[in-house]
């Protein structure tokens, strides 16, 4: 069955090509650091399951050392000039969109199709497998049509990757921190504190504590998934569901969405908030968060209102 055992090695080979591209770029001041970083990510994707837990831990230490000592940076990789690009854009017109759209289109069609073939493709990984197929198709079209040198797509991809830099590993690091927090029982301690903060006898106060607790704990952890078990145990189950007779489906569903409002406001949700700022070359590292806060705060208030009015009828 095709699943992550295809997706990870494929992504690993691409990171290996990034590492090679960085190493070859003699104009790049920090090419060694970048190349090592990409090579370690490639190693993780290609052979992570064979390294053992401690081996993976050592790999993480390597990534942190490279990033922490400031050994990474952007290069000025050779690419086409704005004038050349404008000329090509004028000549090639809308056909340029075809390979770019081939990726989401294949991901879409593949997800739907692969779910019908559980014997061939792992249904849980249908989208990632379809995405891999889409990238393969788009790359094939790109080579056939644009006739680049073999390494050019990887040099160009590495140019974008340099913009993201060490932030590429941050989402995985934060997920691992969440695992350590769970192991250390951080959630129970926070839940205990929250439980003591709730004003006695006030249903609105309890709703407020639950929803704001979801948002705040998500801001700290970068992930509503980590906040949910803590807040449902501290406030949701004892006070809102058992105490006030709230509908468990509504308390859970809207509580999770209150947490998502927190995700919009935190640099800890790196893959949603910091990585896109890097991918889009924004001068303001927190530009995406700034654009989201005016949506997140009113939406959080709406969630508090919905919880209060819908869950206790």
């Amino acid at each position, binding site marked *: 069955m095709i699943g992550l055992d295809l997706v990870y090695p494929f992504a690993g080979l691409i990171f290996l090509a990034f590492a090679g591209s960085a190493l070859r770029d003699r104009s790049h001041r920090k090419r060694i650091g970048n190349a090592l970083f990409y090579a370690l990510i490639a190693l993780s994707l290609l052979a992570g399951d064979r390294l053992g*837990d401690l081996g993976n831990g050592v790999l993480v230490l390597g990534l942190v050392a490279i990033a922490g000592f400031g050994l990474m940076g952007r290069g000025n990789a050779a690419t086409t000039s704005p004038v050349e690009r404008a000329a090509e854009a004028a000549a090639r017109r809308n056909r340029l969109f075809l390979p770019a759209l081939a990726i989401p289109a294949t991901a879409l069609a593949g997800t739907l199709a692969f779910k019908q073939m559980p014997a061939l493709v792992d249904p849980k990984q249908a989208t990632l497998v379809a995405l891999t197929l889409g990238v393969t198709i788009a790359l094939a079209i790109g080579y056939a049509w644009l006739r680049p040198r073999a390494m050019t797509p990887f040099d160009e991809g590495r140019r974008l990757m340099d913009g993201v830099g060490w932030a590429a590993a941050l989402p995985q690091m934060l*997920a691992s921190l969440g695992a350590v927090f769970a192991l*250390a029982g951080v959630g129970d301690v926070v839940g205990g504190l929250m439980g003591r903060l709730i004003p006695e006898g006030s249903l609105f106060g309890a709703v407020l504590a639950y929803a704001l607790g979801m948002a705040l704990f998500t801001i700290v952890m970068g992930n509503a998934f980590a906040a949910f078990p803590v807040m449902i145990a501290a406030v949701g189950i004892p006070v809102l569901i058992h105490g006030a007779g709230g509908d468990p489906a509504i308390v859970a569903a809207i509580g999770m969405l209150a947490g998502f409002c927190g995700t919009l406001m935190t640099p800890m949700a790196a893959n949603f908030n910091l990585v896109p700022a890097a991918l889009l070359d924004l001068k303001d590292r927190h530009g995406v968060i700034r654009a989201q806060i005016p949506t997140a705060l009113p939406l959080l208030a709406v969630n508090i209102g919905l919880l209060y009015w819908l869950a206790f009828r």
Partner: protein
Amino acid sequence: MLVLSGILIIVAGFVLRFNPLLVVLVSALATGLAAGIGPLDLLAAFGKAFNDSRYVTVIYMVLPVIGLLERHGLQERARTLIAGLRGFTVGRLLLGYLLFRQVTAALGLVSVAGHAQTVRPLVAPMAEAAAQQQSGDEERDEEAAAMAAATDNVGLFFGEDIFIAIGSILLMKGVLEGYGIVIEPFHLSVWAIPTAIAAFVIHGVRLMLFDRRKRRP
């Protein structure tokens, strides 16, 4: 209480602008040691979780295609296309993208779009071009690019929970079952709809206001 030191380290580390990878590792170390976990066990637990979460990093496999197409003028073409469409404003573009993202996410198609796949190559350059055209500004409009990324996140977050087989729904079901409360995923996903509508209205109004602000030079 000592296990909360990790949270303090995270906050302080971000405020003082240390390298976030370093901050995260130090926070994990402090938390684990405070909880009495040995250093080697801690490193192994951290490494295992790192290995288990590799799926978030595979998305960078799209970059060679995007980079190659950019080399041949993809972003320029996206801008020209927008410039040629009359009545096409940054607000309407992003409103349409918000709807597309919410609806596809609600159908479980969360990875068909995203920051690397669609925002960087297509949506952001189009939004920037539309905003520049409206304001008559020559400079790159980073605000419009940030708004494009924000719109992707809002659409994804407040669409995906309507799909019954998404991770967060399964997590809620599992946690509630631990307390003896059995709920069908369908009931959880239905109650994501009111917030999804509110998200569309709130972010939509903001996009329209953004649009109007860009129209006045």
